[in-house]
């Protein structure tokens, strides 16, 4: 499991994709490589490392350092091997007297302008300049440079104008220009890998320097998004993680998976002893291909934050102070209370909420707890509030509740539609991969009320931005379908073969109705009909068309309808079942996909099988030795309603802060307050814990084994790199609770839980930890039919048989603007923070976002006398809160926007209890509001903080 730090081999230049093979000879050895490969890479594949400085295989070769020179028989001079492609029959020499002398000369020049403080340098032992000096046999430097970049004062004691002091403004890495060799690897990484273009090389010759944009820009104030790609690419100590500077180099590493978003990046957790030194993106990770974002790469400090609670706590009433107790005492207290509730109010009076942040194995155990120990189906998950409509919509139309592609598919797409997603903030590593494809010429259509960064950023501009009025997704999607059908742009052959032609006829008749035309809905959606038509034509005729969507689709009263509409679009244009196309939900949290797969929803057992099916219940009844309830259980909003009504009394909530993340905070608070036993199992005393009777401390992803499943259905291993600081991994805590209630579970490792999942769930039948060790990761379904997993779904036919077209009638939400609440509020997230912010707020990421702000159009701000940065009162019919405003034309007049990362803002005091018709997924994305200047926090905010402070008291140990 633990391997020593052997840096992933650097082949110098990226792999060539050609199928054509070329054979050449390097130092007398025959080498066969794809056409287009560099000589440097060909040599590396034959095991010969040509010295190099400016080349690295994450970016295209640049050919500036001249260290990688080789000789080619029959050619003049000494070409750079990184920029010279292979050709059949070449005879290449990488080492001879002439080359040795040339290379030493190059190194001498570099070293004469480099401080010789290797022993105390932070990159000592991990520096390519050092390595190359060794490789070329540099033994002395014959001249002393008159002018340098590294001496603060020159030889005569004058200030050296070429000396630039270290820039420590970024909280996670430093930029120390004196060590820079101007190889431009960082600049190319920022452009090619990340796609932000924050770095440039300024000046020429001796004066050329790396710069964060304008002269006055520091790393922090520049466009830099702190992804760390440049730091990974830098061969010297110039761009260096601060943790390395503080701790030193790591000694061993463990491959694991980021616990933040649904991209599911693979990382190397680099350790010294049990101290985490740094996280570096893993080159062979199939979701991220060696890239990362600021959260996964740097924002892990919450794991050791002082706010983490490490001992269990209990209290009789939520008005008491918390009492720290032993695990035994906590379990006895909890089991006793829960049993008491069940005895008095029946087995349906309690339930669980599984976490989309915890592992598959942990989610599986939590739903098993309610189904096999509490004996009901009252299980739900935070996916309820984000992607439950995806499950319903894709299940109905295509037959599986999951995205159809892998992320690699984006490399082959020609036209991308992004609906209600903000990938550069929400799914940054996917966004970087998408931007790479867009820069190579793919076309982009964005459907979003707000001008998100992907609409316009360096070297990227969407062909169409349909800036619709919040709440009109169905109208737009149906108008796109109207255009495709009435203009005859659909793929008849595909529909006839893969779908039911008669059903399509009905559907075509429905969308063709004049009230569904772009012209008819123009007033409603606020999008010019011609734009809609042009976008529809581009998607239907532009080659491989793919759709990526997010919470801006699902979190509406018609969320499920929009998902159905999206699937209809893909089916009618034949954009499903091959690379470069498909329907792809971008999942919010790291394990939303997994928690849904694991049977967290109250109506279905693991693998999306309804509890009404006797055959499915049989499978679990046999293994669990219990009788499973055949009626669907309560969903989160239903649990809260039932609690207020008095029939739901006890809840075990793992890794989820429903008070902060669920809509209509006041209703949630009332529901929680009405319960007799609320068990919160989390890292921190979160907002929900204010209403809890039991607090069970949780463990971080660094402290346990398990698996996460990302948005491409990829099952990735999470590996324990240190012992749980709270004493137990989360799956062990659930087992303790189950056993305290008499369950008699005996799992000793999460691999046994996965074996039980594989045994009961056909799409996981082939999954086990041994195979994940070998394959790295696998996309479900993984079973006898597809032992290596399934990168693309619906290739030869839809999972449900024939694809199903379903009518998508637009029904306006009842959340309407009027004289009291004339503006529409929509919500979202930003890059540096994550969900309710419990983790990221406890890291240095707060330097980028220390509070939620309200975006408002200059016109609306002007009307109300609102100034940039001033406090405003934001009110809806559900409640009101206060926050600061920022004035921007990213939003249209009539629309305001905010994030919900900070509990003080309480944005969900504002959101209402409207929800998706099919799944009760709350309508976060549309709330009618009024905005007015204010002096500071609202009464509710102040009252709430006071209550929170009171309920967080922990009694002093006696």
């Amino acid at each position, binding site marked *: 499991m633990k391997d020593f730090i052997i840096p992933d081999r650097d082949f110098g230049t990226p792999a060539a994709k050609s199928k054509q093979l070329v054979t050449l000879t390097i130092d007398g050895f025959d080498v066969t490589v794809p056409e287009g490969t560099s000589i440097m890479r060909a040599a590396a594949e034959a095991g010969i490392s040509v010295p190099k400085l400016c080349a690295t295989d994450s970016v295209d070769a640049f050919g500036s350092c001249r260290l990688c020179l080789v000789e080619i028989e029959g050619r003049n001079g000494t070409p750079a091997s990184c920029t010279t492609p292979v050709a059949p029959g070449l005879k290449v020499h990488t080492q001879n007297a002439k080359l040795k002398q040339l290379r030493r000369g190059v190194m001498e020049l570099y070293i004469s302008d480099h401080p010789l403080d290797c022993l105390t340098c932070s990159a000592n032992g991990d520096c390519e300049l050092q390595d190359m000096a060794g490789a070329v046999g540099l033994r002395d430097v014959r001249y002393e440079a008159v002018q340098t970049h590294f001496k603060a004062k020159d030889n005569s004691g004058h200030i050296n104008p070429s000396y630039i002091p270290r820039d420590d403004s970024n909280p996670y890495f430093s930029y120390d220009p004196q060590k820079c060799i101007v190889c431009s690897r960082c600049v190319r990484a920022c452009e090619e890998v990340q796609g932000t273009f924050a770095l440039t090389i300024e000046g020429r010759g001796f004066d050329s320097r790396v710069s964060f944009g304008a002269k006055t820009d520091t790393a922090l104030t520049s466009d830099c998004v702190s992804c760390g790609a440049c730091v990974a690419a830098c061969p010297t100590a110039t761009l260096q993680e601060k943790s390395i500077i503080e701790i030193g180099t790591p000694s061993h590493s463990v491959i694991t998976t980021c616990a933040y978003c649904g991209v599911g990046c693979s990382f190397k957790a680099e350790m010294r002893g049990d101290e985490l030194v740094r996280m570096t993106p893993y080159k062979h990770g199939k979701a991220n291909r060696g890239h990362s974002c600021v959260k996964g790469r740097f924002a892990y400090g919450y794991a050791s934050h002082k706010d983490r609670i490490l001992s269990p706590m209990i209290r009789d009433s939520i008005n008491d102070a918390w009492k720290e107790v032993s695990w035994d005492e906590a379990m006895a207290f909890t089991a006793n209370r829960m049993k008491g509730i069940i005895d008095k109010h029946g087995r349906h009076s309690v339930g669980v909420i599984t976490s989309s942040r915890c592992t598959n194995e942990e989610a599986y155990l939590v739903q098993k707890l309610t189904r096999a120990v509490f004996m009901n189906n009252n299980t739900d998950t935070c996916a309820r509030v984000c992607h439950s409509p995806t499950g319903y919509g894709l299940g109905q139309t295509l037959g599986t509740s999951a995205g159809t592609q892998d992320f690699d598919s984006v490399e082959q797409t020609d036209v991308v539609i992004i609906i209600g997603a903000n990938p550069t903030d929400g799914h940054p590593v996917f966004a970087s991969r998408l931007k790479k494809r867009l820069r190579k010429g793919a076309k982009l259509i964005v459907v979003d009320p707000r001008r998100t960064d992907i609409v316009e950023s360096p070297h990227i501009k969407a062909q169409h931005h349909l800036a619709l009025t919040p709440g009109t997704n169905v109208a737009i999607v149906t108008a796109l379908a109207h255009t495709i059908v009435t203009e005859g742009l659909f793929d008849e052959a595909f529909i006839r073969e893969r779908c039911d032609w008669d059903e399509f006829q009905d559907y075509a008749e429905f969308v063709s109705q004049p009230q569904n035309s772009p012209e008819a809905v123009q007033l409603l959606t606020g999008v010019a009909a011609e734009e809609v038509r042009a976008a529809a034509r581009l998607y239907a005729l532009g080659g491989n068309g793919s759709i990526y969507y997010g919470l801006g689709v699902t979190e509406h009263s018609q969320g499920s309808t929009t998902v159905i509409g999206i699937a209809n679009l893909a089916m009618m244009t034949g954009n499903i079942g091959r690379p470069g196309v498909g329907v792809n939900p971008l999942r919010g949290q790291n394990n939303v996909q997994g928690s849904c797969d694991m049977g967290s929803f109250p*109506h279905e057992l693991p693998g999306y099988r309804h509890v009404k099916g006797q055959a499915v219940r049989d499978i679990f009844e046999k293994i669990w030795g219990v009788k499973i309830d055949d009626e669907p259980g309560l969903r989160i909003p*239903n649990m809260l309603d039932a609690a207020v009504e008095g029939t739901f009394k006890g809840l075990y909530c793992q890794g989820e802060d429903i008070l902060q993340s669920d809509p209509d905070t006041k209703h949630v608070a009332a529901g929680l307050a009405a319960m007799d036993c609320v068990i919160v199992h989390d890292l921190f005393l979160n907002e929900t814990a204010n209403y809890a009777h039991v607090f069970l401390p949780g463990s971080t992803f660094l402290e346990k084994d398990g698996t996460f499943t990302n948005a491409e259905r990829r099952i990735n291993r999470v590996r324990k790199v240190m012992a749980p600081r709270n004493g137990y991994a989360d799956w062990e805590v659930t087992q303790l609770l189950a056993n305290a209630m008499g369950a008699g579970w005996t799992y000793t490792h999460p691999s046994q839980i996965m074996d039980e999942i594989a045994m009961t769930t056909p799409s996981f039948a082939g999954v086990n930890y041994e195979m994940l060790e070998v394959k790295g990761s696998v996309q479900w379904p993984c079973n006898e039919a597809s032992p290596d997993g399934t990168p693309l779904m619906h290739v030869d036919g839809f999972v449900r048989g024939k694809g199903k077209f379903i*009518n998508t009638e637009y*029904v306006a939400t009842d959340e309407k603007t009027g004289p009291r609440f004339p503006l529409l509020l929509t919500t979202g997230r930003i890059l540096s923070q994550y969900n309710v912010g419990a983790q990221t707020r406890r890291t240095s990421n707060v330097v980028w976002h220390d509070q939620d702000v309200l975006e408002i159009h200059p016109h609306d701000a002007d009307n109300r006398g609102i100034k940039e940065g001033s406090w405003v009162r934001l009110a809806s019919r559900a409640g009101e809160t206060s926050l600061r405003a920022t004035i921007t034309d990213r939003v249209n007049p009539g629309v305001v926007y905010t994030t919900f990362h900070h509990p003080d803002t309480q944005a969900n005091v504002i959101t209402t209890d*409207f929800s998706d*018709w*099919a799944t009760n997924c709350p309508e976060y994305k549309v709330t009618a509001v009024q905005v007015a200047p204010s002096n500071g926090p609202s009464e509710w905010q102040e009252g709430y903080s006071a209550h929170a402070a009171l309920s967080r008291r922990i009694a002093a140990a006696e």
Partner: protein
Amino acid sequence: MSHDGPHAKLIYMANQIAKFMESKPHDQGIEGLSSHINDFWEPRMRRQLYEVLDAGGAGLRPLVLDAAALIRRPSIAA
């Protein structure tokens, strides 16, 4: 939505489903609505819906009334 009466929320939810199902042919709409409620509504919710239906179904859209016969009435014991 308005919170008049204990059943207002439930009536609202049933009507929301009805609005989606109304764009289907009537028999498919009835089938769709009843199986949706059978599959996703916990017995407590269906019991409350039946309280409304038994009292005449005031406030419910016609499709819900038409589909009522196919909505499973929960057994008395919890």
